[in-house]
C-alpha cells in the first residue's frame, strides 16, 4: 500500500498529491512516470512524477480530474492509501547543456514540465518557461518555476493573466528575436499544442522534445497499447519514451488513438457520484 501524505486542490480540477513510495522516490529521474492503480476495481493510469523527496520517501503527482479514474483518485483524502504504484517507468529526460532552453507547458502539462525545467536549470541551462491555460485560474506553478528559470512567461486565452493568446504566440516572439531564440525546446501539453510547437520550431531546426501521453495499461512494454510512430518507426512510449524528438512524431495518429475509448469513458463518468464528476467540480 502507498499512503497518501497530502492531496491539495491547486487549481480548478487540478490536485497535487504526495504519496509515500520510498523506492520510487530514490530511483526516479526527471521525465519518468508511474502507473497508479488506486484499488482492486480501478484501472491502471500513467502519471508523471513531478517531484520526489528522497529523505521523506515521497513522490509528488499532479492529477487533473478529467475522467472516471482521475476523479476517483483525486477524491481520495490524505491518510488513505493507493493499492498500487509502479515505477519509475520510461526513459529519463535528455538533459544536456543546450544553453538557452524554452520549456513550454499547457494546462496540466506544466506540472509534467516542472521536473524537466528544474533538471535543465540544474544542468546549467538558461531556462525560459512559457506556460499557458484558458484563464488565470488554470495557471499553475508560475512561482515555483520562477525559482530557477531566468524568465516565466504566461499566456492565457482570455488575457486574464500575462499575454492574451496561446503559448505558441509567446514562443514565436522568442524565436523571432536572435537574443532570445532557444537552442532547444521542451513542450508538454495537449497534442494540438505540442504539434503547433514542433511546426513552429521545425523551420529553425531547433531541437524540440515532446512528452507523449498515449493510452497505457502495463507501462512496461508488454502490450504495445501505447504505440506511437516516430520517424516512421513504431515505438512503445512507455519504454522508448515518453519523450521523443517532436519533429519526428506522428501527432495525428497519437490524437486519433487517444480517442479509442471515448464512448466508454463518457459512460464511466456517468457512474461517478454527482459531486465527483468533473463538470460539477468546475463550478
Amino acid at each position, binding site marked *: 500500500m502507498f499512503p497518501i501524505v497530502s492531496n491539495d486542490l491547486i487549481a480548478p480540477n487540478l490536485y497535487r498529491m504526495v504519496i509515500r513510495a520510498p523506492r520510487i522516490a530514490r530511483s526516479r529521474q526527471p521525465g519518468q512516470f508511474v502507473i497508479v492503480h488506486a484499488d482492486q476495481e480501478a484501472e*491502471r493510469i500513467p502519471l508523471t512524477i513531478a517531484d520526489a523527496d528522497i529523505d521523506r520517501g515521497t513522490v509528488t503527482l499532479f492529477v487533473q480530474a478529467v475522467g472516471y479514474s482521475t476523479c476517483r483518485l483525486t477524491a481520495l483524502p490524505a491518510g488513505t492509501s493507493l493499492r498500487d504504484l509502479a515505477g519509475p517507468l520510461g526513459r529519463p529526460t535528455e538533459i544536456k547543456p543546450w544553453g538557452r532552453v524554452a520549456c513550454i507547458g499547457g494546462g496540466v502539462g506544466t506540472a509534467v514540465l516542472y521536473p524537466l525545467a528544474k533538471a535543465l536549470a540544474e544542468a546549467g541551462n538558461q531556462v525560459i518557461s512559457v506556460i499557458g491555460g484558458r484563464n488565470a485560474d488554470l495557471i499553475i506553478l508560475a512561482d515555483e518555476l520562477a525559482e530557477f528559470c531566468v524568465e516565466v512567461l504566461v499566456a492565457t486565452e482570455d488575457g486574464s493573466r500575462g499575454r492574451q493568446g496561446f503559448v505558441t504566440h509567446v514562443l514565436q516572439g522568442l524565436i523571432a528575436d536572435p537574443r532570445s531564440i532557444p537552442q532547444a525546446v521542451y513542450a508538454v501539453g495537449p497534442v494540438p499544442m505540442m504539434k503547433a510547437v514542433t511546426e513552429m520550431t521545425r523551420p529553425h531546426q531547433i531541437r524540440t522534445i515532446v512528452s507523449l501521453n498515449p493510452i497505457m495499461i*502495463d507501462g512496461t512494454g508488454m502490450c504495445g497499447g501505447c504505440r506511437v510512430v516516430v520517424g516512421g518507426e513504431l515505438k512503445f512510449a512507455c519504454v522508448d519514451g515518453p519523450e521523443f524528438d517532436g519533429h519526428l512524431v506522428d501527432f495525428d495518429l497519437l490524437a486519433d488513438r487517444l480517442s479509442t475509448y471515448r464512448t466508454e469513458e463518457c459512460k464511466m463518468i456517468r457512474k461517478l457520484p454527482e459531486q465527483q464528476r468533473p463538470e460539477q467540480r468546475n463550478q
Partner: protein
Amino acid sequence: MKKNLSHKEIMAIKRVKMPEQDAQDRSRNFKEVNLGLNKEQAIREAQRCLQCKSQPCVDGCPVRVRIPEFIEAVAEGDLPEAARILLADNTLPAVCGRVCPQEDQCEVLCVRGAKSGPVAIGYLERFVADWAMEHPEELTGGKPPQPSGKSVAVVGSGPAGLTMAGELAGMGHSVTIFEALHDTGGVLRYGIPEFRLPKRIVDLEVTRLQNLGVSIECNVIVGKTVTLEELSEEFDAVFIGNGAGLPVMLDLDGENLKGVYSANEYLTRVNLMGAWRNDVPTPIIHGRQVAVIGGGNTAMDAVRTARRLGAERAIILYRRSEAEMPARIEEIKHAKEEGIEFILLAAPLEILGDEQGWVTGLRCQKMELGEPDASGRRRPVPIPGTTFELEVDVVVNAIGTRANPLLTATAPNLKLSPKGNIETDNTGATNLPGVFAGGDIVRGGATVILAMGDGKNAAAAIDAYLKKND
C-alpha cells in the same frame, strides 16, 4: 479397489471423458469450460494405470512428478497421500493439470496410449490438486525445513518464479519474489483466460507458497524500481524469471488503427483488468467480427475471449494448416465447438480502416505449403493472384512474443543471446556469479511447464551454490 482387478479388467476400462460446460452456453460466459472429474471417475481412471516399472510418463514431465505413485494412491482412494506425492514435485499442480500440453509430454509416453488412449494423467493431477485445495487441513503435519540463513531474490511471479520460490522455501531459504504488475502469476494471471484457468486457482496456489514463507512484493520493476545489481548485493542469490512479454508486431499497414490489439494487450485488459465485466473502468472493444492472427494457444485464448465478449463471427487466421498449429488439440477442439471459424492457409497483407481511423477489414493472401523450414514445419508460400478481404472490426495479433529488455537493459554485464534472451548453462546459471535465470527469458516464448521445469532445475543449482559459498 485396484488390487482386486485382473489385468483384463484393467485393460477393459475406457479412458474417462472430461465433463464440460455445454458449448453453446459456455461460448457466452467466462466460467471454466472443463468441470473436473468426480471421485468415482478419478478412481476408475487411476485404475487404468498399469504401474509399469519403466515409468516412461515421468520422463515426459519437465518437473518429474512421480506419476505412477500418485495415481496408485488415487486408485486406492488415498487422496491425502496422492496430494503429498504430487505436491512434493509440483508447486502448481492445479495449474498444470489445466494448462499443460499432456498429449505432448507425460501422456504421449504412456504405454496404454497406443491401444486405448493414455491414462488421463492431467485430469488426475487436476483432480488431486483441486481436492488438496479444498482439504488443506488433511495435508498439514510436514516438518518446516531448518532455516538456512540464506536469502534469494526471485524476479517475476510467473510459473518459473513461483516454482523456484516453492522449491527454495522447502529447502529452508528465505525467498522474496519481485513482481512488476499489481498481481501475481505472470501469464497465469494476465494471459490465460478465466474459462481455462480460474484466477481463484492462481490465488490459492500463490497463498500456499506464502504459507511456506515466501514473501511477494508486487509493483517492483527490476531494472527500474531496483536494479539487478542492487538485488545481487542485498541477496545471496538471484533468479530471473521475467518471461518473454514483449509482443512481436505484425509490421503491416493499418497496424495502428483503432481496434488492432496485440494479444497481450487484449488478454491483459480482459484477464488482469477484468474488462469482460461491464462494471470495471478498464475498457475493451467488443468487436462484432473479430479476426485473431496466429495458431498458438494465445491465439485460441484470444479468439475464444472475443466470442465470449459477444462477437458474432470470431475467426482464426493462420498461414499454415491445422496440422501445423502449435495450439493444444483440446483448445482447437473447444474453439471449434464454440463456433470459432478457422481460415487456414491464409496470411494478412494489410489492415483496412475507415476515415475515422477504425478497423474495417483485413486483406489476406491465400497460401500453400512448400518445403519444410528450420522448424521442421512446411513453409507457407503465397499463391499468386489469390487475395481476399474479410470484414472485421477488431484484429488481434497473436503471432508471438520475445524477451522484454526492461531488466537486461540496466544489467550491462549479463550475457545475452543475439535475440536478447539471457544465456545460461544447463543448470540455469548465467555468466554473473549467483545470478540464475529460467523460463521464457531464456527460452523465448514456450510453455508453463517448461518454465516450471527450469525453475525447479535452477532451484537445485542455487541450493548447491549457496551451500558451496557457506
